[in-house]
């Protein structure tokens, strides 16, 4: 856009001033978004602490904090409660929220569909079917420890469903609408298969299956946490590296390609990340539907769709909602631990509504 000879005089000065003004405004916008992301991070820490401090056995918050900082100063029962129950559950909530939200955010962008999420496109249903096979038919995989058998099955089917989406995406001439439809078809197919397995299941297996499919943090353990944390750590740098490209993809597929972005490649690797994130989470905690859908929407309302901020904000929003849901699952029925999958929607919807109405006020 540079004119051949730089214009001089008062006009150029006015121009400089207005450009400087716009640059400053953009810098302010970026700063505000960083603050919002940091704020979400702080909120997540508070929610996490709150989650650790909540539970049927009444441990005062002060004890919990000192127990976290200095485990050896605790008596044995408290140590077990904090270190073997509350902390793994609470961390699992945060990690699962992070992973599902990131998966949902990437899916919504690469499929150009605000309703896309691991849940709405069949990943969770596929995992349920895998779990159903393991529970009801009692099949087991070689070389896998017994208590990892069920997650392994769920993982394989979840991964398989995303890879099927992937294969569809690589067929020449499939638009993103076709992909989304195919994902929805997967939901119905796997739900039907799960129903079929349920039909032939024993009473006991059926009960286990229903409980599994509700999504629960009680399957958390330190080694599972380690696996999920590793998956997230491995995936996030690649997601962030693709953030400008994903931002450009929001302007349309032809547009992004004419910027020099290989959309096929972007979509391929993004779906690969999504499959790892979603399959691992669902395998460990069961079906948790709402997070992957709503966390990206919350992030979008807060920071827009510059993916450098949108992706981190989605992850943190997911972690916050999951944490609050975990707290809710302990408080709603005193003394009982509800499956967290039931609570996520109950916590997430109001949070979402508040934001939507807050935005309306501003307009």
């Amino acid at each position, binding site marked *: *856009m540079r004119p051949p000879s730089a214009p001089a005089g008062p006009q150029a000065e006015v121009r400089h001033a207005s450009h400087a003004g716009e*640059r400053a405004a953009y810098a302010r916008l970026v700063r505000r978004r960083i603050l919002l992301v940091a704020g979400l991070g702080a909120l997540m820490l508070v929610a996490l602490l709150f989650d650790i401090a909540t539970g049927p056995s009444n441990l005062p918050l002060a004890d919990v904090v000192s127990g976290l900082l200095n485990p050896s100063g605790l008596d044995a029962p408290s140590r077990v409660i904090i270190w073997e129950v509350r902390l793994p559950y609470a961390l699992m909530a945060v990690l699962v929220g992070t992973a599902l939200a990131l998966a949902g955010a990437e899916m919504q962008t690469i499929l150009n569909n605000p309703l896309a999420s691991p849940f709405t496109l069949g990943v969770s249903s596929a995992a349920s079917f895998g779990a159903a096979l393991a529970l009801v038919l009692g099949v087991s995989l070689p070389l896998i420890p017994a208590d990892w058998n069920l997650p392994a099955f769920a993982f394989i089917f979840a991964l398989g469903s995303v890879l099927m989406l992937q294969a569809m995406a690589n067929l020449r001439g499939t638009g993103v609408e076709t992909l989304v439809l195919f994902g929805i078809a997967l939901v119905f197919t796997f739900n039907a298969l799960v129903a079929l397995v349920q039909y032939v299941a024993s009473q006991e297996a059926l009960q286990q299956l229903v409980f599994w499919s509700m999504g629960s943090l009680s399957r958390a353990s330190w080694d599972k946490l380690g696996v999920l944390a590793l998956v997230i750590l491995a995936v996030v740098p690649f997601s962030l590296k693709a953030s*400008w490209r994903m931002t450009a993809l*929001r302007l*349309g597929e*032809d547009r*992004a390609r*004419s910027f*020099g972005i290989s959309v096929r490649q972007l979509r391929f690797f993004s779906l690969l990340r999504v499959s790892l994130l979603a399959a691992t989470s669902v395998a460990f905690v069961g079906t948790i539907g709402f997070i992957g859908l709503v966390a990206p929407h919350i992030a*979008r309302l807060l920071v827009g769709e510059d993916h450098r901020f949108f992706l981190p904000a989605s992850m943190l929003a997911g972690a916050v909602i999951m944490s609050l849901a975990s707290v809710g699952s302990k408080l709603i029925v005193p003394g009982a631990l509800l499956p967290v999958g039931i609570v996520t929607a109950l916590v997430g919807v109001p949070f979402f509504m508040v934001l939507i109405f807050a935005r309306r006020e501003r307009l």
Partner: protein
Amino acid sequence: MAPLLTLDGLSVFYGRRPIIENLSLTPITGGGVTALIGPNAAGKTTLLRALAGLVPAKGSIRLVGMASPAHPLELTGLPVSQHARHVTYMPQALPQRVALTVFEATLSALMSARSDVVLSTSEAQARALETLERLGILDLSRRGLDELSGGQRQLASLAQSLVREPTVLLLDEPTSALDIHHQMRVMQLVAELARERSIIVVIVLHDIAQAARYCQRIVVLEHGVVAADGLPEQAITPQMLARVYKVEARVEPCSQGFLQVIVDRAA
């Protein structure tokens, strides 16, 4: 030396259906604007997308006179990342519901493929602002794309193409949603840019008088075939309009000498 774009035996298919078959043109020269006109479904968008490397095409599209005139650059089959260094395409359809500001969207045109453009963030910002200013939409830079009018959105979309400063600029109906002031402004700007930087501009238009006024060359496409090609006064004739557009029309210069098309009735 101004660059040249040559098209030789170009064929484009959607599935098995041929849209453009064996199309050849005399070289399109840089420094001026070439209009691509023709009725709906003639294949204008398809041809532009083929030039942009967005649909696979058979035949040859060459860019001559880039680094060394002796070695023309074959564009067909080039990976998108390399293609995009030389060619930018502005699509006809605009995206819906995008939570980005006009400035961010313009910036992403440079930042998302920085390895080809080699720019610092600050340079990219400066270039984005200059582009918005030249289009007269600097005051929209902080507005969200989803809160713009149709015409404003089209101008923002044009900014995303111009900011890349390509050698070949392909614009698919960039003025279809604009009022007369902005239509003139955009056409003047495009003609100016073509001249200043001696770049190749191919623009799809439905307004024939406007094409005649601002473009040095008119290519008329009909069913994927070139129906007329040449200077405005050569290409735009009552016979061509009757044959291609199925209208009875007169082509007359106005008092200032610009060609006007007066349509009497649909034939």
